[in-house]
């Protein structure tokens, strides 16, 4: 329960970022460059004098939005492929299973970077975001696909589905009315476990300089200064945004674990 509240609070905070912290994430306060937390800059400033709190909030909006959109696309792709495979069976099933197995074994971070490399290097932020979302989704449809296929297979042997079949309900109606509703719980659980992964992928890409790009804030960009770790001795506050990201990932981990358990028990 605490973790669920935490998720809601974090998402609301990120959504309300511009009102919570009126500072401009891109504007440079040259007089206060590289200073620690103060009433004016809660989390301190970076080397250009940009407000870290504002960069954290705006960057989080960007990263979570990119991750969320990726989740939706990946789930839509995976769910469609999985349901089709589970329901149609035969060659379609074998094909989807084989291809998804390939996708599961690929070191997807390398592939993600390579695929991003195949695009123009400096894209406008919105295009970059769209590209990242599509890439992430294209690379991660396999897990939800296998999951929903398994569900469809097990659901189609349930008594009520057999009964509907016996009454002569058309196939598409069985799929829409009897099988889809049974997969929703699993979909939510998948979404909750995929979202932090995708946010992380966006963070990693931005960290590697292949995401949103300067001067636009993103969580990955906030981690970049940590490459020069020796700076941490004097500029310890550049660690604060990273520390603030921990509750986000931790609460998502807890909630998705809870839901997965509950779901497994009820099955």
């Amino acid at each position, binding site marked *: 329960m605490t973790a669920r509240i935490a998720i809601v609070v974090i998402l609301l905070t990120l959504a309300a970022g511009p009102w919570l912290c009126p500072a401009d994430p891109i504007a440079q306060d040259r007089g206060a460059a590289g200073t620690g937390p103060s009433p004016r800059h809660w989390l301190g400033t970076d080397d250009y004098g940009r407000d870290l709190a504002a960069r954290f909030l705006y960057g989080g909006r960007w990263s979570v939005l990119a991750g969320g959109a990726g989740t939706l696309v990946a789930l839509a792709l995976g769910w469609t492929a999985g349901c089709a495979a589970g329901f149609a069976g035969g060659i379609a099933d074998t094909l989807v299973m084989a291809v998804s197995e390939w996708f599961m074994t690929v*070191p997807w971070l390398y592939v993600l970077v*390579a695929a991003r490399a195949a695009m123009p290097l400096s894209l406008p932020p919105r295009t970059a975001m769209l590209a990242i979302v599509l890439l992430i989704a294209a690379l991660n449809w396999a897990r939800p696909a296998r999951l929903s296929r398994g569900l469809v297979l097990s659901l189609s042997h349930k008594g009520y589905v057999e009964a509907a079949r016996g009454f002569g309900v058309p196939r598409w109606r069985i799929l829409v009315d009897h099988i889809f509703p049974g997969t929703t719980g699993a979909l939510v659980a998948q979404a909750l476990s995929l979202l932090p992964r995708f946010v992380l992928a966006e963070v990693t890409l931005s*960290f590697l300089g292949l995401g949103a790009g300067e001067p636009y804030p993103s969580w990955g960009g906030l*981690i970049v200064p940590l490459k020069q770790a020796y700076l941490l001795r004097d500029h310890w506050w550049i660690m604060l945004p*990273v520390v603030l990201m921990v509750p986000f990932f931790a609460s998502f*981990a*807890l909630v998705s674990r809870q839901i997965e358990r509950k779901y497994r028990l009820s099955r």
Partner: protein
Amino acid sequence: MIRRLSACFVQIAAISLLAFYVFSVAPGDFYSADRLSPQLQGRSVAEWRTAKGLDKPWPERYVLWCRSALHGEFGMSLAYGVPVMRLIAPRIGKSAALLIPSLLLGWAFALGMAVWAAGRRDRVLEPVMSIASMSPEVILVSVLLWFAVWAGAPLTGAWLPMTGLICVVSPLVFLHAFSALTAAREANFVRIAGSRGVLKKRLWTHFILPAAANPLISLLGPSLAAAVGSSLVIEAMTGWPGLGPLFLEAVQARDYDVVQAVVVILATALTFTNLAADLLLYRLDPRIRLRA
């Protein structure tokens, strides 16, 4: 068995074809930046591209590339002007020197913890590990770096990336091992064996561990994939001169031969790890042998 092997080769061929195709249709190449230079005429850039064979159609280049790849040569790095293999080989060594010990240590640590936790029906470690398994390597390594700076430990050397990799591998292994061991522990044949007075030690070595081995062996491939993926970030963060930094550098410079070679080599390594895991399962698990 033969089907499984041929599937492996089809998979590698498909990945290499895909990698090749993607980079041949990608906008721009190594000389794109030169084309914009006012000191150079378009003609000399075109001549360079012809000299390197970049103007040939991609299927032709793919066939050439495959032929040399079979001899262990993956083309030339345009940025360094040396064969890709000479650039990559030492980096692979460095990465392997990091990956292999951390995988071994991570597995050993995780298995030990899982046996311990499953033995005493621990309820605390599992949620902790599932949070750890979801926590991103960038954050893990940042915290490690922070700790190192705070403690005054040296920031160079293998210990930082290795600890980071262990932190990535062991939660993953732990979670799978824990659930497999718990399930095996609750299984009826284990209970019966226990009630018939089989010693606890023998119960673990002869009943529980063999029953839990199956899901763990199939985890070999995914755990290597996870470690390889994380090593890209971890090497970049800690400045370890492995495959990751070279790969990123090649991406930025559009040195596509290097990028392709890294992707294909990694995919091949992972495919064969999965194959090895499957063969191991086939040998160890009579159920699979009978079905096949």
